[in-house]
């Protein structure tokens, strides 16, 4: 049995981990997927670990998924939402987290609206940090679960072609996905209106395409991102209807492609904008499998991090 461990104490972004780490996480997630499909879905592995879920930004899927992963591992959990806390009284991030850590917490899962919040915290507090999304920077567990889902569907990621469609500019999912898929040997393309593709993104080694049909004909997997209206400070396209006509994926487009592609979406879906209902609910869509895999992948991440002693 190979004795392996992660090269990092925290999971702050895909940028900081290597291919071996990613493969170890995906392999471990295979085992946890088997666990959560059993009659008794719980293992006692983290029974003496306490995990704080600190969310400075709204979340449904990620928060529930982390919480469920923690419970399935028998960890003790505490939840914290910034909106109902002393943050609104003016407490700083380090103070907030140190107060939580004073209650003997081993691991912190944090979502924050500012890029780099995880990195900052990891330098100033004495706990292991898992980034659950920081601004428009990274969302590593989403990228890992997307990679896990692709691997489960196609067998391997090496050499596969993945297109990420939509609001690349504001998307932490896009950045983490690009880095993760490239580390696993996939080819990545981004597709969207020029206003939503960041300048110089080619320097990451991705292809850029502005025509959705061309992009879809090239790929094996299409990851359709949500238009993040809450992060858009100015108008990036004339109307949602026009965006849907140019970059929305519907059944007709899907059926007219030369090959059958896999459709993914990190959620939450704006039905009728980036993806129509009949595509989201079609058998080519693996959106709900992504959610199921999310729990297994997060269990793997927490288990592997917690297994490292200080």
């Amino acid at each position, binding site marked *: 049995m190979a*004795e392996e461990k992660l090269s990092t104490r925290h999971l702050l972004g895909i940028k900081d981990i290597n291919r071996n780490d990613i493969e170890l996480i995906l*392999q471990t997630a295979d*085992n946890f997927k*088997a666990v959560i499909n*059993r009659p*008794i879905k*719980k*293992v006692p592995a983290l029974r003496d670990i306490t995990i704080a879920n600190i969310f400075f930004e709204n979340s449904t899927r990620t928060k529930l998924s982390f919480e469920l992963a923690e419970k399935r591992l028998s960890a003790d959990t505490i939840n914290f939402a910034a909106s109902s806390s002393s943050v609104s009284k003016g407490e700083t991030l380090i103070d907030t987290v140190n107060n939580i850590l004073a209650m003997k917490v081993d691991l912190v899962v944090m979502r924050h609206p500012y890029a780099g919040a995880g990195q900052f915290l990891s330098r100033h507090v004495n706990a292991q940090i898992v980034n659950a999304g920081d601004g428009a920077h990274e969302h590593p567990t989403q990228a890992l679960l997307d990679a896990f889902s692709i691997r489960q569907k196609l067998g391997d990621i090496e050499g596969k072609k993945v297109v990420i469609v939509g609001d690349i500019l504001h998307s932490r999912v896009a950045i983490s996905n690009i880095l993760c898929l490239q580390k696993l040997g996939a080819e990545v393309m981004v597709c969207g209106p020029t206003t939503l593709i960041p300048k110089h993104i080619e320097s990451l080694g991705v292809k850029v395409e502005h025509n959705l049909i061309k992009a879809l004909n090239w790929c094996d997997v299409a990851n359709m991102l949500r238009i993040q209206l809450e992060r858009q400070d100015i108008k990036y396209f004339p109307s949602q209807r026009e965006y849907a006509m140019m970059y929305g994926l519907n059944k007709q487009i899907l059926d007219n492609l030369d090959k059958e592609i896999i459709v993914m979406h990190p959620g939450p879906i704006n039905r009728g904008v980036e993806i129509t209902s009949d595509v989201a609910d079609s058998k080519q869509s693996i959106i709900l499998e992504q959610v199921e895999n999310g729990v297994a992948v997060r269990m793997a991440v927490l288990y592997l991090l917690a*297994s490292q*002693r200080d």
Partner: protein
Amino acid sequence: MQKRTLLDGQKFQITIKRLCHQLIENHNDFSNTVLIGIQPRGSYFADRVQNELSQILKKTTIKKGNLDITFFRDDFRRKDGMLAANANTIDFIIEGMNVILIDDVLWTGRTIRSAMDALLAYGRPARVELMVLIDRRFSRHLPIEPDYIGQQVDSLNSQHVKVSWKETEGEDKVILISESNK
């Protein structure tokens, strides 16, 4: 480093055959009994027992699964290094069945404690028995004793028992290894 051979060659085969006949004595035709090998090394032993039983009973329907105990261990974060998990392959129902837990070496009993917990996540077996090839007696940390024993050995804590299998290491053999400076 000193090595002493505990079991090999014909004696190894005879031991496996004897264990299989003991199992048949208690479980008849295995219609209500399943074999569960503890991952990773108990599963090799379980494979061998399954083959041997199939030959003796002339039937190929003896059920065998592999159980991984990694997430149920009690030494998580208490030792250096992390043990990678193995696959669970139990594609039958254990509810109401007689289960034979199979491992190569029984030492402190902690693995078996974890295995019993891991097993119960699959349902409530009627009865659980334990079979080991080597029993390092007088070294238990927990009140666990095997029902079927290949061979008992007296060993020091500093010694190590290594079981090799024809399928994976090329030879059926059990050796007791002791560091010479101890």
